[in-house]
Every structure is written in C-alpha cells, then in structure tokens.
C-alpha cells in the first residue's frame, strides 16, 4: 500500500451518487482549477516549517519533487513522507506495492528508495491486507507503510494480541471508499468498456465513475453504481464498511476535503499521533514535502464526504444483513457445505493471531462429519470480537463461500451491543477484558 495516495476510491465521489456531494469538483485530478469564482481555499497561510506541525493538526501537503507530484495521486505527499523516512533512517524498510499490471500488485518489503518512488500513484483494485505479511518482518526493524483503514485495524488487532510491536510500525492511513476485485474489473474492461485489459494504462475514480485510461490516451468511463448493480463494482464488504478514514493510523491522508485550488495537487493530512508528527516534520525538514494549514472549509468538506460515505454504508448494511427467515441453520449448512477445509480464510485473516496451533484447527476433524464444521463454528466465535471486515476471506475462498458476510453477521450484533469497534483504539477485546487484578 505504499504510495497510492488514495488507495480506494480515493475520490470522494467513488461510487458515490449522492446528490449534493460537496467535493466532486475537488476530486478532479490535475487540470487547471477553475479560476472564475474561487470557492473556499483548501489551505490558509504560508508554507509551514517543521516546528509548525503538531498532533491533531490538519494540513494540506504535497511533494516537493516534480516527478512524484506527477506520478502520485494527489500531490505525492505519501510517497514523499515514506521516502523521507527511509532516507533519513527513521525506518529501515518500507512496504510498497509492486505492480504486476494495472490490475494487480503485491506488497514488497524494500529498503531501496527508488522502489518507493516507483510505487507512486493510486490503485483502487488492490485487495490484499498486509497485516499477516508485516508480521513476518516486524521484529527486524522499523517499517513504514501506507494502509487502508482495514489494514490498520488488522495491525491494531495484532498489536493487542502482542504479535506486532506497534513502536516499530509507522503507518500512513489512506481514505478508502472501497476496493474492487481485479478479476471483475478485468472482465468489465472487456465486456462493458469494450477495451482490451492489456491496453489499460491507468485508472481513476471521479464523480462516481470508474475511468480507465488506455495506452492511446483515451478515457473510458462507467458509473460505479451501474457496475455495482451487476456486482462488478466495489467488493461487498467495502460497500457496508463503516470506517472510511484511517483515524487509527499515525497520519490520516487522503484527498477528501481538498478544494479545487489544490485538486490533484495536494493531500489532506491529519496528524493522529506524536509519531505521525515526527515523520511529517522529518519530511519537511529533509526537503521532501511542503504543507500548509488546512482551512476550516476543507476540514468541513472532508467530514461531509465521510458522512455521505458512511450513510451509504449504513444503508447497504441494512440491505445485506436482513434477519434470516426460519430455517437459519439450514441456510448456514448450505453456505458452508462446499468448504474443502483449505484454511485459506484463516491464513489471510488479519486479526487471527493463534498461529499454527489454533483452536479452530485443533478440534476440527474431518472424521467427525458434523453438520456444521467445528472449524467454522470456532472461527465465527473468535471473529465476533475481532473481525475487521476486510473481506479477504471471501476473496481467497476457492469455493466462493461468502465468509465475510457470515463473520460480520455474527460480529455485528455483539459489537453493537458492546459498543466496540474493532481495531480503532487500544481497547482490549471484550472476550479478554476481565482480568484477575480488577476484581476485589
């Protein structure tokens, strides 16, 4: 997740058809900002020095380097901060995305700053969650990476279970309106857009439309709503995800709230932690990035976009999680009957921390021939207080069991009841909340 400025529909309008969306113009990448009636400015005051950065501050930032600004999504601030941290030795490694095509990328651990620069640019079809990947390396040295909100929630959950050392991880959170399945977009490219997938050079989401740019420079666009009607748009779990701004990371970045004057040229960044402030100061001192104080209007606009996205999510959630009719058990049996027991859902699951000797596999025996496998029963229970809703389980399932929906089905009622949002803060998971010392 390295440099994509806005991982998922970074644009406020991603899949967003709501009328009155405040920032559709603000999302327009590049291009001259309309001069005629300048709306509220994004940023106020002069370019800040490092001492001007404080926790809780909201800024508009961009990279100083021209190439990064050109390649990066909205001013290249994320790339600049990551490069600065790596070159100045604040971190030893950075996790970046190595694109294998416009549709797929893999997370790669690198210490080469060129890789960081090469990863600049947004990608909306990235579905992998780096938590488990990170776990292999986190004991070596400090690592920086850019994350979607659900990535960060996974990392936080691992931190709570003492599997990742939070002191060694620096994260830049990216606004995320949802991600798309590469294979579906590939299919759509051919069938709906009528374009050869190999010709696609870049993609962007703008005003609720998915725009593909081909090598001959032509733009092809389709409404995401229409794609979603055919289940070809954002992944299902993204459509009802309730965390769109990564408030749990060190720096929360994105282009929501960036007004037309900085559209495509600046990133809105909110400093969430002291570590975030340190990294941003480092980028400014090292001459990688410049920031200005964000205006009131920009902050407001960002909140408004977020509000609209959350409202849409809540609506979808209501549509998807209808109480099952009678015979619920039979429904579950049916959903799970194709399971081949490969365990891929467990392998990719970001909050899952048991390791190889886990309860879900230890008690699961194919010889049991129970109606519902114990593996799934245990995982349903374990994820009730830890599911981050990243949806990778459904993605990797070889027999297409809608696992994310099943996990959320169990997790939603208890998380609502206990008022617990997974991975957003350091609160102990409810299942482990009772400690010996606290009684008496």
């Amino acid at each position, binding site marked *: 997740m390295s440099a994509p400025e806005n991982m998922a529909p970074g644009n406020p309008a991603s899949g967003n058809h709501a009328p009155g969306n405040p920032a559709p113009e603000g999302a327009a990448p590049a291009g001259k900002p309309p001069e005629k009636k300048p709306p509220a400015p994004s940023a106020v005051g002069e370019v800040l020095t490092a001492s001007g950065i404080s926790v809780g501050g909201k800024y508009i930032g961009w990279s100083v380097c021209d190439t990064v600004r050109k390649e990066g999504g909205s001013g290249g601030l994320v790339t600049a901060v990551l490069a600065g941290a790596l070159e100045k030795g604040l971190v030893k490694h950075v996790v970046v995305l190595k694109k294998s095509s416009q549709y797929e990328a893999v997370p790669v651990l690198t210490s080469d700053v060129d890789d960081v620069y090469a990863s600049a640019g947004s990608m909306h079809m990235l579905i992998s969650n780096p938590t488990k990947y990170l776990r292999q390396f986190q004991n070596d040295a400090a690592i920086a990476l850019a994350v979607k909100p659900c990535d960060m929630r996974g990392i936080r959950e691992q931190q709570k279970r003492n599997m990742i050392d939070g002191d060694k991880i620096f994260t830049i959170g990216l606004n995320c309106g949802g991600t798309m399945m590469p294979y579906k977009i590939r299919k759509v490219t051919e069938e709906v857009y009528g374009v050869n997938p190999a010709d696609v050079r870049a993609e962007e989401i703008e005003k609720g439309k998915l725009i593909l740019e081909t090598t001959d420079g032509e733009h092809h666009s389709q409404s995401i709503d229409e794609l979603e009607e055919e289940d070809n748009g954002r992944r299902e779990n993204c459509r009802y995800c309730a965390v769109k701004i990564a408030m749990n990371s060190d720096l929360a970045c994105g282009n929501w709230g960036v007004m037309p004057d900085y559209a495509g040229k600046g990133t809105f960044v909110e400093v969430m932690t002291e570590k975030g402030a340190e990294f941003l100061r480092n980028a400014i001192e090292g001459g990688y990035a410049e920031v200005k104080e964000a205006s009131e209007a920009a902050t407001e606009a960002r909140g408004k976009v977020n509000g609209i996205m959350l409202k849409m999510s809540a609506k979808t959630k209501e549509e998807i999680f209808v109480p*099952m009719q*009678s*015979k*619920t*058990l*039979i*429904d*579950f049996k049916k959903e799970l009957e194709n399971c081949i027991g490969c365990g891929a859902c467990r392998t990719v699951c970001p909050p899952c921390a048991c390791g190889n000797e886990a*309860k879900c596999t230890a*008690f699961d025996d194919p010889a*049991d021939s*129970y*109606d*519902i496998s*114990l593996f799934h*029963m*245990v995982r*349903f*229970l374990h994820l*009730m*207080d830890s599911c981050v809703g990243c949806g990778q389980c459904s993605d990797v399932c070889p027999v297409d069991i809608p696992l994310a929906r099943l996990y959320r*089905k*169990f997790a939603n*009622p*208890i998380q609502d*009841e206990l008022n617990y949002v997974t991975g957003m803060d350091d609160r102990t998971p*409810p*299942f482990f*909340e*009772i400690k*010996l010392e*606290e*009684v*008496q």
Partner: protein
Amino acid sequence: MSDVIPKSAVTGCDSSGGFNPKIVMFCCNWCSYAGADGAGVSRFQQPANVRVVRVMCSSRVDPVHIYTAFLEGADAVLMTGCHIGDCHYVNGNDKTLVKYKFVKTMLNEMGLEDGRLTLRWISASEGQQFAEFVTEMVEQVKALGPSPLRKEGVV
C-alpha cells in the same frame, strides 16, 4: 414405511412415547456440583434427562465443548457455576458470563432457539433450586422439540 415411524423413535422417547430430551449440563466443582449432590441427598425429585459434566470451574467450559455437545446431538446445554463474587478462582464466573454472552449471541444468530443454552448460578446449598432448574429446563426443551443440530438417526 418411513412415515409410520414417529419422529420420537429416532430422537429417543420415554415409555409413553413422548420426546425425551438429552441435556448436557456443566457443573462447577465447588458450587453447582455440590448443589446437585445436595439435591440428591435431600431427595428432591428431578427428571433424569440431564447428563452432568463436572468441571473445576464454569469458565473451563469452552465454546468448543458447547458446540460439540450440540453437534453430537444434545437438545440443550446448561451451564451452572457459583454466584458472582463466590467463585473459587476469584473471577472465573465473570469470564463464563462473557463467554456465555458470545456463544449465546452466536447460536441465536445461527437460528438455534433461545432456550437451548442457559446459564444459571447455583450454589452448594441450593439443592432445591438445582432440582427446580433441571425440571424447568426439561419442560422447556420438551416444548421446543429435538435440536435442529442433531444428526438424523442419532439417539
């Protein structure tokens, strides 16, 4: 042929042919098991549908135990332990309560009826309450009928 066999024949029935539920009951060693003992010593009458499993503490009952009981064909699972604050291990029953809440929510979402999993605190001196609880639960489960999780043909 199959339609003349009453359902009770494959789910276990009593002498009068009615449904005779199988109930797994977890009793903690220090309170509820002693309570069961007390019920026996005091000769309180209770139905014989309950299979008692003694555990050292109610918090020893893992969700897997409950699932396995249901999947093996139990019509109901009862959890019992010391009253809150009386736990022999300081706060074991607080943990039981959390686990119970999770498992209960999950089983309800799965569509298992509400009365099939019940938690009750029964102390060592409450023999009568123990017998009453068992009687009450057996009546309740009889009204619910065989568990939908029970495998067909399991008696």
